[in-house]
């Protein structure tokens, strides 16, 4: 039995997303990380458009467009400008070495698929098989945030996590209602601006974007 073309494309996109999530976890260069983030947005946007086509959900076209505009063009451009202005293109230091992180990542994916199993059985969407991948990319982004030392990769991890959640929303329910999606997009955009302001504040104060400077406030024993 062969699946219809649209299903095959959706599955392909889901696999690509997982691949990109792993690529982000293993990526050492900040500029490539931004490109990967843009690519993730593009895959997400294509996926949403294909789902819209296959299920005749007109509002999904809109959210595909929103994703394209926000996550493929606006946010990567903003981030790119930021690292240009801050003049940072260094290699990223990680807390764990990359192979170990990848191994942890595999465990994370298995957990995600197990967690998603009962939920995806309930979802009646054509995309439900990709729910596990959505959860895996959320958790992998989380892993990336934990293992990175610099502020910029942490923020990219944060944005990638939002991408994963968006993908989860499309695969479980064909996307959230329009008002909510617009609100989320606005929050993400404003959030990125604030992160940008923050980078300058951190750099001005500490002469570096290494967040180990930000570990002074602790409970003293």
């Amino acid at each position, binding site marked *: 039995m062969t699946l219809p073309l649209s299903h095959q494309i959706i599955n392909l996109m889901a696999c690509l997303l997982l691949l990109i999530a792993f690529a982000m976890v293993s990526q050492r260069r900040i500029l490539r990380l931004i490109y990967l983030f843009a690519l993730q947005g593009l895959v997400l946007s294509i996926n949403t458009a294909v789902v819209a086509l296959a299920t005749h*959900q007109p509002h999904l076209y809109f959210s595909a467009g929103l994703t394209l505009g926000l996550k493929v063009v606006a946010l990567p451009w903003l981030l790119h400008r930021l690292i240009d202005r801050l003049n940072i293109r260094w290699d990223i230091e990680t807390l764990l070495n990359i192979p170990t992180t990848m191994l942890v990542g595999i465990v994370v994916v298995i957990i995600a698929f197990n*967690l998603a199993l*009962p*939920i995806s059985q*309930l*979802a*009646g969407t054509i995309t439900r098989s990709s729910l596990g991948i959505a959860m895996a990319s*959320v958790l992998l982004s*989380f892993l990336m*945030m934990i293992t990175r030392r610099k*502020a910029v990769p*942490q923020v990219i991890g*944060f944005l990638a*996590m*939002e991408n994963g*959640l968006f993908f*989860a*929303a499309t695969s*479980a*329910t*064909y996307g*959230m*209602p*329009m*008002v*909510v999606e617009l*609100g*989320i997009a*606005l*929050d993400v955009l*404003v*959030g990125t601006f*604030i*992160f940008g*302001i*923050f980078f300058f*504040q*951190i750099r*001005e*104060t*500490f002469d570096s974007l290494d*967040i180990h*400077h*930000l*570990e*002074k*406030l602790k*409970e*003293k024993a």
Partner: protein
Amino acid sequence: MIEIALVLGLPLTAALLLALWGNRPWATDLNASMSLLTLLASAALTARIISLGPMTAWRELFFVDAFNVFLVALTAFVGFTTALFSRIYMRVEQERGKLSAARLRLYHSMYQTFTFTMLLALLTNNVGILWVAMEAATLATVLLVSLYRTPAGIEAAWKYFILCGVGIAQALFGTILLYLAAEKVLGAGGTALLWTHLHAVQDQLEPNVLSIAFVFLLVGYGTKVGLVPLHNWLPDAHAEGPTPISAVLSGLLLNVALYAVVRNKVLVDGALGSHLAGNLMMGFGLLSVVVAAFFLSRQKDVKRLFAYSSIEHMGIITFAFGMGGPVASFAGLLHMTTHSLTKSAIFFAVGHAAQKTGTQVIDHIRGLIQTSPAVGWGLMLGSIAILGIPPFGVFASEFLILTTAMQQQPWATPLLLAALGVAFAAIFSKVQAMVFGETTAQRLPHPPALLPVFVHLLFVLLLGLYIPPYLAQWYRAAARMIG
């Protein structure tokens, strides 16, 4: 209808006006008067709900019932009194050269934006918009926490941003799962996230999905409530931000986040027919009370001390709502009110005390009562009130919660009592040393804004002595809704 438009429109307009003129000398007055107008609008809304009962507005986008109108009134009231306090406080800060005019503009504009997002979170009927508003409330306050641009301030703000951002992302996933379950019953589209619709069909929602959803929602919004072990951002953000912001974070934002948890709990309870949500909340609540109480005695910074006290009290309220039942929910709502009023009053007094002595370190604040008896007594009375000494209102609500716990969850009572005892010892000894003894305090260039402190404490005292029948009626209606 018109009242809702005013309650939401006024702070939004104020935010825009203050974004333009927030650096002018009269901006502090504009901030306070716009907050007063918001308070009047919310009073009108409250009067309407009391006389006409729950209502929805604008194609059911907004929903007001006894539960949220009471929080709207509280939010608008504390928002106004904090603006009065901030009028004097921020002037002193500016004259001491701690803040430039441009930052004052940011502060004023964001203060009103923050009020707007909290009111939106309370009034919206859409569970998704509730999430959007909660996230927006984080975004509005994050630059306020780092307003002084000190290394510690920036670190606190970064921590606040990342932790609450990640936390609230969990809540978004929970909301997606809720939508997945709702869509099965209500069909896709806008209505499936409307709380009133969800409430009507709650017993048909898929229980497995909802129980997973509630875990994510509790962890997500619980981060903002400051529940242990998700509380790490809270003491830092309270200690490093300007004091008016500490007052509204503690007095209002934590309440609004807890409101989000409780709204979702009502749905989950209906769908599950079990006590899972309540048990989870009791667990988190009790852990917060105990852990926070033991951290109190180790604090050296006065604002951190009261931040941990907020974690403790949010734990008590979460525990009360977790127990459920008419009495516990009633007590939880009463405690929300009394804690919010008392804690903001304490922060007002602490703010002036810190300005007078030029430090937030407890050991360096001494003898407040000599230079300014009013600030000293304000802090002392506030601390006595928050520690649950009769006749203040906090005693009444804690007493109700403890007696209910003895009947329903006897095992938890000794833990709660021990934690309250530890908290008493820690806070009382520290505050006593700050208030009495040889002084280190100096006079302020402006007379301190003490009216808000004593008005709040007076209300807390009145609530302890006598709860007016209409207010009790109102709490009871809200408690019935919560279940």
